[in-house]
């Protein structure tokens, strides 16, 4: 499939698709751990992806020291008050008995704490966002190599999942889905609006890379030698011709993308190995039992809630890794681009298409789904152009269709999901039934 695109469109396009297929595979493996292993309907996949992306920014971006110096004190005060409020609330919660008095005093403490926190928060954010708003206006990050953020993104997503799990695990599936969807939306609106943290909709661009830049490649000797060797030209002779120059640039793109593919492939394979091992172990057996029948699993001594929490956290961590990888590949963090259709429900389609409970299935599902998602647009454009036959080229209908061709993918995705659910409910690679 990808090879067809490689020859048909270009290798750069094919590799770009491949890289996103690999990232999607990580996401769908993460969701598969939650849904396929344990039957958790997580409709907040997007939250993990986004926090992974944010981590990539916070790890790799240079710290904005000026922002720290102007906003640091207020920020510190804010944190002090946050801890203070929380500990007082916790204290009241532990000491006093349930009742009106307790609820009232807790509410009062939170209100007072809020007033103070709000004061310092306003002060801090105002100061921070004033620092060169066109370039920074946020706290920046740690200035570490971005590749560290892949692991950090996993941890951050795990932490977030712990909090989300506290709120919403233990609810029945419908509720859990709605709750996770809601939290993920809130998460995105925080990223969009808390400029001091993520620059909000102003986006963070120009993140550092774990792989070489095209420009540097074009300068390096080994690269030039390689390309000239590949095209069978002798030393420096035709280096200046335009054709070769163009090839150079294309090859540089290909090399960079291949480097990414290599890194991503390592991640995919590592996670795959662990995921398969876990599924085929007593742990996996227990998870599947919980998925099949929570009541019975609980009667057989398994702590369903804590196991759900565990699997929710692990799955989210995997998705968080993918989120950091995605931001690394893009080189930028754009909170506005996170929408549930693309970052939650599309991943669902991948898992269900590939086969819930099967790790390889999740990867295959991710590849197919992402391929269709990307290629639906050119395909439908091609279709529209070829029905020109019946209409004049500039008829309003054709123009309209050309304009909306990208949206064909939505219908295709929906159809794919419905057809799989109906005629192949176990997906392409069904779960292996016995150990």
């Amino acid at each position, binding site marked *: 499939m990808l090879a067809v695109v490689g020859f048909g469109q270009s290798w750069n396009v094919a590799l770009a698709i491949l890289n996103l297929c690999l990232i999607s595979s990580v996401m769908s493996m993460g969701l598969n751990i939650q849904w396929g292993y344990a039957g958790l309907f997580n409709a907040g996949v997007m939250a993990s992806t986004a926090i992974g992306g944010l981590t990539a920014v916070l790890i790799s971006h240079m710290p904005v020291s000026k922002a720290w110096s102007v906003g640091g004190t207020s920020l510190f005060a804010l944190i002090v008050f946050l801890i203070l409020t929380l500990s007082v609330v916790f204290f009241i919660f532990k000491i006093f008995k349930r009742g009106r008095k307790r609820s009232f005093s807790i509410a009062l403490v939170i209100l007072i704490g809020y007033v103070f926190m709000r004061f310092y928060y306003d002060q801090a954010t105002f100061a921070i966002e004033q620092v060169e708003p066109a370039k920074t206006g946020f706290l920046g990050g740690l200035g570490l190599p971005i590749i560290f953020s892949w692991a950090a993104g996993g941890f951050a997503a795990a932490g977030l999942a712990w909090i989300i799990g506290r709120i919403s695990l233990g609810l029945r599936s419908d509720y859990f889905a709605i709750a996770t969807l809601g939290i993920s939306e809130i998460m995105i609106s925080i990223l969009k609006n808390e400029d001091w943290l993520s620059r909000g909709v102003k986006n963070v661009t120009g993140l550092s890379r774990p792989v070489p830049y095209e420009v540097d490649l074009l300068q390096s000797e080994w690269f030039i030698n390689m390309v000239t060797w590949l095209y069978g030209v002798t030393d420096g002779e035709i280096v200046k011709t335009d054709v070769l120059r163009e090839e150079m640039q294309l090859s540089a793109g290909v090399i960079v993308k291949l480097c990414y593919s290599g890194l991503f492939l390592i991640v995919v394979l590592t996670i795959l190995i662990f995921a398969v091992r876990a599924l085929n172990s007593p742990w996996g057996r227990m998870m*599947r039992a919980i998925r099949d029948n929570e*009541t019975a*699993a609980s*009667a057989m001594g*398994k702590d369903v809630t804590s196991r759900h929490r565990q699997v929710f956290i692990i799955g989210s961590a995997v998705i968080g890794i993918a989120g950091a990888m995605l931001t690394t590949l893009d080189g930028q963090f754009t909170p506005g681009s996170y929408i549930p259709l693309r970052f939650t429900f599309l991943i669902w389609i991948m898992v269900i298409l590939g086969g819930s409970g099967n790790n390889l299935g999740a990867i295959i599902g991710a590849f197919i789904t992402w391929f269709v998602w990307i290629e639906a647009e050119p395909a439908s454009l091609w279709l529209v152009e070829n029905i020109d036959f019946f209409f004049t080229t500039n008829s309003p209908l054709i123009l309209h269709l050309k304009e909306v061709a990208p949206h064909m993918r939505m219908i295709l995705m929906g159809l794919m999901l419905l057809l799989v659910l109906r005629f192949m409910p176990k997906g392409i690679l069904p779960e292996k039934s016995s150990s």
Partner: protein
Amino acid sequence: MISVKNVVKHFGGVVAVDGVDMKIESGSITGLIGPNGAGKTTLFNLIAGNIVPNEGSIFLDGENVTGLKPHELFSKGLLRTFQISHEFHTLSVLDNLMMVPPMQIGESLLGALFRRKEVVRQEDEIQKKAKDVISFLNMGKMANELAGNLSGGQKKLLELGRTMMVEPKVVILDEVGAGVNRSLLKEIGDAILSMNRDRGYTFCMIEHDMDFISRLCSPVVVMAEGKILAEGSADQIKRNEEVIEAYLGKGLKNKQN
């Protein structure tokens, strides 16, 4: 073994269990009977921790276990089966049994990933035990079948088998014989008797089949309308006027409706 003290449970306005006191003696097979809607299954759910009583307390071996979760009760030696089979339908019969033993090394994620040798050794032991249980239950042919594909009676047998994977102090059986054909019912009865005699399990069971009850249970407790109506040997119960009236009266009421 288990003592239930003045337990009350209501759902909305309906009182399902209304101040029940009951004892399940160690080593006994206690039968719990009563007309439909008497509150038997609710009482079982209360004992097994699936629901929490509004009033009263439940003791297991003298320890107050009111409000504990089912999995906590499991670790204290209380196991149950369900009226409607609760098998793990996408797991094989063997896996259904093998998932039961607690504290398996491979059940912690780290153990599963990094202590593989020990896990394999432990799995072998557990599998051997599971195979013993399977042959005890005469289910040898079905060992690798998905539990979801079993017949209703076989599912009940499998649930009974799950309780044999550990050494429970007390097993509560909710209509283990319902919907099971005669010959299989006899097998189940034999299994229960031998588990009781040879392994010393204590049982408490809800059952409708009086022959089955007479054969296995002593004592028999009768519930009606959320209360304990009578207690005694199967013969005593059969002759008890109040009990007969509770069944018949219910029947008459049904007819009037």
